[in-house]
Each structure stands twice: as structure tokens, then as C-alpha cells.
């Protein structure tokens, strides 16, 4: 409740600071009241109250003040897109900062489905994304295991090559792939895109998985093999189940990357039939006009599932990325 809890790690607090702390609390209240007064005198513009309250928080509990400020920066653009998706068509071009617009309506969502081929875009993206994630995992799970458990000729050069692929500018692969796809007349086919995404996803997946396998003691498979398992049986029955966190990170990363990919799809897919949502939304935003509402509605719909997936998996994500890095 008191500010020493927050200030203690900074080790600046001592008993003589009590008066100072009291002063800060009074200052915070004064700022809050001042903001409210300005709000009332300026015709109920709540901006003053919000700024006053925040300055008060910053004075009273500086750390919370900083975190609230940064959280607001992170979240506000997102809330703003939601707010725009709810605007009525005639109120789209407004300078209002209200989060719930006057005359809020779901019209933009209805128009998105009826006037645009939104469902088809999402369906195309979804099939590409699921295919890439599944194929990526299938290819990298066993490869990473080989890198983790065996020393064989060519291992080091191959690992270094995988590292190097992370440095390739996207266009360096895209130029030849575009030429090949165009020559084979495969533009407007999702297969080309699936293969292009998978090949870029595999190196990073192998890295993450190898790092994770490395932290699982080899004794576990050896024990299983003593019990009569074959090596591969031990891999499928012992290692894979233990690697669920890493497998979900890899799946999630590949899913997010393919789901939101834009620049490669823009070059390879050119007809409306195979358009992904990223291409579709980009067309909606071509000019600053009434399509802004439809764009915002579409953004909300494609982002929410990913956001929920991300939040749900974030525990794995964090542990998987940093696991075993710090040896205290």
C-alpha cells in the first residue's frame, strides 16, 4: 500500500523520507483535482483529467506511472482500431479520440462480409498457414534431434549455414522464387507460397528445437532404450512429449509468420481467387476513404484470434526462448 514497497529495490528510502513521501501523496491528489477542475471548466474534455491523474500517479508511485504510460502506448493503437471499426460510415473521418464513437454500429463488419470476399481471404490464409506450420514441424523436429544428439561430419557447417540463412534479405530469395514461379506459370497457386514459407521457416525452427533438445538429459532416452525401446521409439515416446513447449513455440512462430505474411504473397499471388487477408486488407486501405471502417473491422477479426493464441501460449513462449540461457 505504501510507496516503500515500490521504492525499496532502488534503496533510496529511509525513515527520514517519510515526510517527503507524504508531500508526494498530497501533490498527487492536487494534480488529480486540478485535472478534474480543468475538465469541468473546459466543457467536460476528459483529456485534462486523464493527464492530471497520470501525473499524480507518476508523482505518487513513479514505477506504476511509467508502466501505465508504456502500457497505454502499447494498447492505445489497438483500442483505436476497434473504435474505428465501430464508427458509423458518415462519422469515419472524425478527429474524435473517443474509444466508443457516437452512434457506434457493427455496420463495417456487415459490409466487410457482404461487399468484400473477406471469408475467402481468411480461408486462403488459414489453409496456407496450417499447411506451413504442420509441414515445418514435421521437417524440423527430427532434423533438430539429429543435430542435438549426434556428432557427424558436416554438422558444424550445416549449423552455420542455418545461421547464415537468417541474414538473407527477403528479396534475395524472393527474386529467384518469383522468376521460377513465373516461368512455371505457378502464380496464383497457393502451393508456391506454402513451399516458400516452409523453406524460410525450417532453419529457425531447427535452431529453437535443437536448443530445447539440448536441455533434455540423454539419460532419459538411454533409460528407455534399456527398457527395450528402439532409439526412434524413445524419441517419439520420451523426447517429443517432453518437448511440447518448444514444439508449440515453433508452431506458433511459423503460424504467426505465415498468417501475417504480406510482401512475398504480394509478389506471387495476383488473382482475387487466391488472395490472402493481408492482400485484401491492403487493397481496402489504398486510399483514405470510407473503406477505412471495413479495414478496421477486418483487422480486428484477423488479429483477435492470433492475440488470444499468443496470450494463451505466452508462458511457453517465454520459457522456451530463454530456457537454459543464464547459468546463475
Amino acid at each position, binding site marked *: 500500500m505504501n510507496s516503500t514497497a515500490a521504492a525499496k529495490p532502488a534503496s533510496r528510502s529511509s525513515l527520514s523520507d517519510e515526510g517527503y513521501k507524504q508531500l508526494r501523496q498530497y501533490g498527487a491528489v492536487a494534480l488529480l483535482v486540478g485535472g478534474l477542475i480543468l475538465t469541468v471548466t473546459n466543457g467536460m474534455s476528459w483529456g485534462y483529467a486523464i493527464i492530471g491523474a497520470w501525473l499524480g500517479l507518476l508523482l505518487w508511485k513513479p514505477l506504476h506511472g511509467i*508502466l501505465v504510460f508504456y502500457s497505454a502506448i*502499447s494498447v492505445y493503437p489497438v483500442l483505436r482500431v476497434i473504435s474505428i471499426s465501430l464508427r458509423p460510415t458518415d462519422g469515419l473521418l472524425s478527429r474524435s479520440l473517443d474509444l466508443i464513437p457516437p452512434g457506434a454500429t457493427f455496420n463495417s463488419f456487415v459490409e466487410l462480409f457482404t461487399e468484400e470476399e473477406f*471469408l475467402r481471404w481468411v480461408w486462403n490464409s488459414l489453409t496456407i498457414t496450417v499447411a506451413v506450420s504442420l509441414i515445418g514441424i514435421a521437417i524440423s523436429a527430427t*532434423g533438430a534431434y539429429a543435430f542435438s544428439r549426434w556428432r557427424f561430419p558436416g554438422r558444424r557447417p550445416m549449423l552455420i549455414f542455418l545461421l547464415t540463412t537468417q541474414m538473407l*534479405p*527477403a528479396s534475395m530469395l524472393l527474386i529467384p522464387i518469383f522468376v521460377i514461379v513465373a516461368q512455371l506459370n505457378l502464380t496464383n497457386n497457393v502451393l508456391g507460397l*506454402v513451399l516458400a514459407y516452409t*523453406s524460410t521457416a525450417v532453419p529457425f525452427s531447427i535452431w529453437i528445437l535443437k536448443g530445447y533438445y539440448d536441455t533434455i538429459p540423454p539419460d532419459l532416452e538411454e533409460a528407455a532404450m534399456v527398457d527395450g525401446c528402439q532409439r526412434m521409439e524413445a524419441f517419439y515416446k520420451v523426447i517429443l512429449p517432453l518437448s511440447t513447449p518448444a514444439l508449440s513455440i515453433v508452431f506458433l512462430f511459423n503460424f504467426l509468420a505465415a498468417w501475417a505474411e504480406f510482401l512475398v504473397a504480394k509478389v506471387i499471388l495476383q488473382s482475387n481467387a487466391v488472395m490472402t487477408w493481408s492482400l485484401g486488407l491492403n487493397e481496402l486501405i489504398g486510399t483514405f476513404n470510407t473503406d477505412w471502417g471495413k479495414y478496421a473491422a477486418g483487422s480486428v477479426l484477423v488479429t483477435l484470434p492470433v492475440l488470444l493464441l499468443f496470450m494463451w501460449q505466452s508462458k511457453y513462449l517465454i520459457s522456451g526462448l530463454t530456457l537454459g540461457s*543464464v547459468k546463475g
Partner: protein
Amino acid sequence: MEFSGLSGDVILGTLGQILPLIVGIIIGIIALEVGMYLFLARVVKTKHALPFTLLAPAIIAITLFMVYPLIFNVLLAFSDLKRSTFPCYSPVALGACELDHLYGLDYAIKNFTDVFFRVRDGEILGWGRLLRTADSTFPVLLGRTVMWTVANVIFHFTIGMGLALIMNMKIRFKGIYRALIVIPWAIPGVIVGLTWKQEFHAQYGFVNVLIQALGGQAISWLDDPTAAFIAVVFVNIWLGVPFYMVMLLGGIQSIPGDYYEASEIDGANAWQRFNRITLPLLRPIIIPAITLDVIWTFNRLDIIFLITGGGPQESTNILVSALYNAAFGPAATQQLGFAAAFSIIIFLILFAFALVWITTSGGLKEIYDR
């Protein structure tokens, strides 16, 4: 029955393309593994039969879809492929071809020279124009890329570290703060780019509305070169902070508390504890994170492409966005041969940097050499 562009036929059509691919690849992987294992173990009799078998699918995929395109890219640098000569390079004759040979050293010399210089009749006239304006020369683009990368990485690291340190203290609502701060990371890059582009609109975007509400002057973010560059850097910083915060917080939390207690007894102040305990112990996380961030930021073009498209007057183009524009953008006539050469130069710059940085800092050693 069709709704919103989706009908039974469309669904079946896509599944007809995708399902055979997935099933085919998985059956292919199994068949390949069994066959290859039997071959290596029974015929070749190598003791590395199992690891090579396990690696085979990855090696085949990477060779077909990465190594082969890269080799083809080098070949393209030896070609005069652009929109007008596209028919020449097509296996099916599509029309008249004005070239007498398709690949040659003369093309390569021209492509690589064009990246750096403007040449007429064998005489170097100055730096080459990579795009439309005279300002988009190689040194300008390289300088801007370095500025873009350095600004991003410094802010990513300092803000991410600051937040991680605060989040590591005994503070309430930690879970809520973390969930909120991580949000930018989870939003698809296209949405981030397009949304911020709208919000930088001079009149209706919230950035200017806020600035004016606070008594400032409206800024024409997308028309003013300096403002546009600040805008794209800001968005990319906004995007990258969560990654650092998550990585660093995970690292800080795994440092045993005893270290801090012991140093506190010895009278170390907060800065000394940070400098002598936190930073050194976080090194195995900080160095790889910065290395990856430098590489990703150097190569990251989606934010720039979506928000400014490299404009106004090419003032926000970095190397990779100029490359994309030269190869596919509206600004150029798809000069693919030249772009292939340009892409090789860009890769070599990054590779040289990475080589020096990794060998001097020892970064990434922990990752591939455990």
C-alpha cells in the same frame, strides 16, 4: 451457396490443392526416412546412418527451396532480366526477344557496377541512382540503413531493459502490465504497418490530434522527409520492445536472489548491482538478442514499405526497401537482374558485419556450439 466469396466449391478446391500436398509430404518423409535408413545402415554401413536419415527431409527441403534459389539468384545477377526481356528468359517462347545471349559476364559487370556508379561510355559519372531520385545512391541508402538499425536497436534495448528491471521489482498488477506491453508483438506486421500509416495521417490520425490537443503544431508525417523517417523508426521501436522485455525479464528472473542479497550486505548501490551482477549474468541473453535484432532490423522492410513506401522522395528508403522497389515496386520496371546483384551486395555487407561482430563478441556461440 456463396457467402463473402466463400462457397463449397472454393473450400473443396483449396483443400484439393493443400491436402494432397500435406499428405504427400508426410508420406514422402516417412518413405524417405525408412528407405534412407535401410540404405545407409545395410548397404553403406555407416555409423551415422540414423542422424543422416533424420536430417534428410530438412536437407532436401532446404536444398530445393533455399540453396537452389540462391544459386539461381547468382545466375540472375549474370543476366539482363527485366520486365521488357522477360519473354527471353521464359521456357515457353512468348514473343520476340531482343537479346542475343541470356547470361554473360558483361551483364554481371553492368549489374554490379550499376549498384554503385553511374557510368556512361565507360566513364564513371558519379554515384549510381538506385531509384528515381538523385539522392538514392548507395552511400546514402547504406548510411540510412545504419541509422535505422542503430536507432532501433538502441531504443529496443534501453526501453526493453528499463521495463524488464521495473517488472522484476515487487510491484502489483505485474501480470496485467506484461500482458498489455506484449501486445504489439502479437499483432500481424501488416496490420501494424497499415494502421500506423492511417494514424500518421496529417488530419485524421490520432498522432496529430493528440499533438494538437496538447498545444503543439500538426506535423505532416508522411510528406516531410525527416518526420517520415522518425515515424517509421518510432513504429519499429514500438514493435520491437516486447521481444527484449520478455527475453531480458526471463533472464533477470533466473538470476539467483542470493547474489543481490550478498552484494547489498557489502554495501553495493543499485547501479553497482546492475552493472556488476545483472549485466554480466545477462550477457548470454543480451548478445544473441542484439545480434538477432541487428540482423532482423537491417533486413526489415515491411514497416517502411507499408507506411511510407520509401517516400517521400525516397527519404525513408533503406537498402532492403530500395531492393524490393527495384525488383517489384511500382517505381521501377522490375529490373530483376540488377536487383539480384544488388541483393548479393546487401547480403555480403550484413554477412561481413555479422562475422566481425560474432567473432569479437562471442555472440551466438552459446547457441550453435552447446
